[in-house]
């Protein structure tokens, strides 16, 4: 037990954020964090209101628990998708493994403490969501206070089951890939798996016709519960949880605890047999067979500083599994999400219908396309976190930037170009297909590319700028340079504000009867001005921030 606690503490420390120092920076961070909270708190509150509303609407027909269950399932899926990579990394690919293997600690201990540290570090958001859902539900059902006390265990432990799933899948993947000699291939299999799950999730969601917001209450009231039935089997703890605190049902509570204990038991049992073997196998694997090196040396060619620096950044992003999953892949799977949203909200607009509307010059559809392009172009470069981790990715070798004879001006511009290029390609491959499918007028298309260009550029410069102020340099695992990096959250906050400003503002102007062409011009003007503004700040501030950075 002692081993377990101290290991957990150590892992948690490695996962936690670095300290902020310097008065100026504290003020800056305080400001940024409050912006962030202003965005996340409404989101969390919205979830509570959603549960409240649904419960209120459905409790008369006897389906009062559905609102809460639905939210519970969504939280569980969310946890599963986002924890998978974290757990796989923490169990198999973190740097500490080679130090741990020789220690006289049972492998189950290592697994248990790694799991706990992930659980604690990853679940603040989920915790808040469960909390507001419980409140929303209790308010609607008018549950008395003692019931809330009953819900405490569940509030704290709800994400255990989805995370156990992640862990078990990781164990299996790693055991069944033992025969593969190349470590990087195994990681890629892990990545492929995440993709597969995302795709399945996407397809599953899109087949949910009844999830249409106008009709969901009705369809649930009519007893159309296919989605719920499947989910109740996959995540049995949710229903038990609701039951236990709605009626202060002791048996349901015991069952809830039992389900969790069994899940953990299965996981630790499997870990006992599978973990050590696959980990040892992994650390003995070589990464690449050797070729004829002398010939390679002969083929060395000089490149300009800019190209060479740029290629280096790309190589690191593409080769490191953590960066590849979080920074690169996301640019090419966003259409899955877009498709889901389209299915859920606009499923009565078929492609053929939209095409006709576009050729008729329907303003509403053009506005929809414009706002979508703006939205994706703003959110994707924030979501892929390349820009906001530009300096953090350098880690404890940040000082490299300073001792090479390369102007900081060149270095930060490369760091802007990298996320810009990747995001621009990621956004516009798909929009181009979309434009062609819809036969968009050429002029409108050009305007859209132009707007997309500036949205992405703006967010990328902003990201690099934010990350230059207080980069997260102390990390031992590449994944941590992204996950424990405030700056990626902060950029997301800014991006959401910008998104609200441009899309919300655009829609508002449209409802006030402003012409679409004027909205486009206005958007372009705002974007160009903002970009110039941020660029001018960056030209002075980023080099200064690099110079002042003394942490590594």
């Amino acid at each position, binding site marked *: 037990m002692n081993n377990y606690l101290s290991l957990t503490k150590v892992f948690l420390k490695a996962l936690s954020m670095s300290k902020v*120092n310097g008065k100026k920076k504290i003020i800056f961070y305080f400001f940024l964090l409050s912006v962030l909270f202003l965005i996340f708190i409404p989101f969390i509150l919205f979830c509570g209101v959603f549960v409240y509303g649904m419960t209120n609407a459905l409790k008369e027909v006897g389906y009062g628990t559905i609102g809460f269950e639905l939210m519970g399932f969504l939280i569980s899926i969310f946890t599963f998708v986002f924890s998978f990579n974290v757990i796989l990394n923490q169990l198999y690919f973190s740097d500490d493994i080679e130090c741990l293997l020789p220690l006289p600690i049972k492998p189950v201990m290592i697994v248990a403490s790694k799991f706990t540290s992930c659980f604690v570090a990853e679940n603040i958001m989920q915790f808040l969501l469960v909390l507001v859902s419980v409140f929303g539900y209790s308010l609607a059902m008018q549950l008395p206070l003692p019931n809330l006390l009953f819900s405490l265990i569940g509030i704290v432990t709800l994400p255990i089951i989805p995370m156990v799933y992640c862990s078990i899948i990781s164990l299996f993947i790693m055991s069944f890939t033992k025969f593969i000699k190349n470590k990087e291939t195994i990681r890629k299999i892990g990545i492929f798996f995440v993709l597969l799950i995302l795709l399945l999730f996407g397809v599953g969601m899109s087949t949910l016709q009844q999830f249409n917001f106008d009709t969901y209450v009705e369809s649930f009231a009519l007893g159309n519960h296919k989605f719920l039935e499947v989910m109740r089997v996959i995540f049995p703890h949710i229903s038990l949880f609701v039951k236990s605190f709605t009626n202060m049902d002791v048996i349901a509570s015991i069952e809830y605890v039992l389900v969790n204990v069994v899940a953990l038991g299965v996981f630790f049992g499997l870990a006992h047999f599978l973990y050590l073997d696959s980990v040892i196998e992994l650390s003995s694997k*070589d*990464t*690449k067979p*050797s*070729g004829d*090196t*002398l010939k*390679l*040396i*002969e083929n*060395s*060619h*000089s*490149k*300009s*500083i800019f*190209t*060479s*620096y740029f*290629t*280096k950044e790309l*190589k*690191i992003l593409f*080769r*490191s599994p953590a960066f590849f999953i979080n920074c690169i892949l996301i640019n090419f799977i966003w259409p899955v999400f877009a498709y889901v949203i389209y299915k859920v909200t606009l499923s009565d607009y078929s492609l053929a219908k939209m095409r006709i509307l576009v050729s008729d010059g329907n303003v509403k559809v053009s506005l929809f396309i414009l706002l979508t392009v703006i939205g994706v172009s703003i959110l994707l470069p924030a979501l892929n976190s390349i820009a906001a981790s530009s300096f953090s990715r350098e880690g*404890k*070798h940040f*000082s*490299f930037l*300073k*001792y*090479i*004879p*390369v*102007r900081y001006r060149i270095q930060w511009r490369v760091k802007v170009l990298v996320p810009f290029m990747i995001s621009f390609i990621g956004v516009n491959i798909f929009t181009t297909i979309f434009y062609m499918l819809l036969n968009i007028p050429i002029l409108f298309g050009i305007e859209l590319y132009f707007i997309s260009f500036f949205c992405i550029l703006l967010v990328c410069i902003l990201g690099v700028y934010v990350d230059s102020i207080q980069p997260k340099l102390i990390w031992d695992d590449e994944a941590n340079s992204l996950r424990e990096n405030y700056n990626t959250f902060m950029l997301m906050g800014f991006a959401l504000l910008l998104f609200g400003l441009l899309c919300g503002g655009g829609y508002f102007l449209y409802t006030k009867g402003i012409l679409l062409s004027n909205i486009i011009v206005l958007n372009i003007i705002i974007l160009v001005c903002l970009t110039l503004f941020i660029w001018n700040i960056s030209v002075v501030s980023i080099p200064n921030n690099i*110079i002042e950075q*003394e942490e590594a």
Partner: protein
Amino acid sequence: MIEIKNVSKTFNGEIKAIQDLSLTISPGEIVGFIGLNGAGKTTLIKMMTGILRPDSGTITINGYDIVKEGLKAKQIIGYISDSPDMFLRLTGLEFINFIADMYHVSDDVRKERIKYFAEQFNLVDALDKPMQSYSHGTRQKMMVIAALVHNPEVWILDEPLIGLDPKSALILKNMMKEHAKEGNTVFFSTHVLEIAEKLCDKVAIIDHGKIVFFGTLEDLKKKYHKKDDLEKLFMEVIQDE
């Protein structure tokens, strides 16, 4: 030629890492920089290479001020940092080529130098593998090649011999000697006294951010009337202050 004039550096407003330090290292000299852990060696070296800015004072490298004419100064410095695990996702060769690009090394020169170093250090087979798969010593050798691939005039090496096997350490030591003999400057830090004794023309001893002795080993022995035991000598110098 390295000229350090009245340099001070304080961290977080309280830790005085370097205090009003002055030191001049002439061309053709190998200078060993000796001190206990935490004495300030790395801090001074980081200021010499442009990584940290001195709070006050100036540092010039062959006449170029490291703050005001940073690019020119950095171009002629070969620097080995105290931790060798950088750019692990690149192969050794990609890493060296990348560094060579940063210093504008021409094709022919880089090929010749990479081949020369790789053979010297017995690295030819490792070059096309990711540096992630290297042992600590191999990574350190790669850092040596990266630092020297542009044939810098001034070498500033932070604990360069740590992790090297005896043979590679010997090769590097010989390179240092040769480089100094050609009229260049070699400045390296170490906490191993024997290395300093065998290799250096002069030693600079640092303690609590101040130079407490700078001169030849002969001078040192004369000053403290001790003939042979360098360790005792060293302790005495430090306690003297």
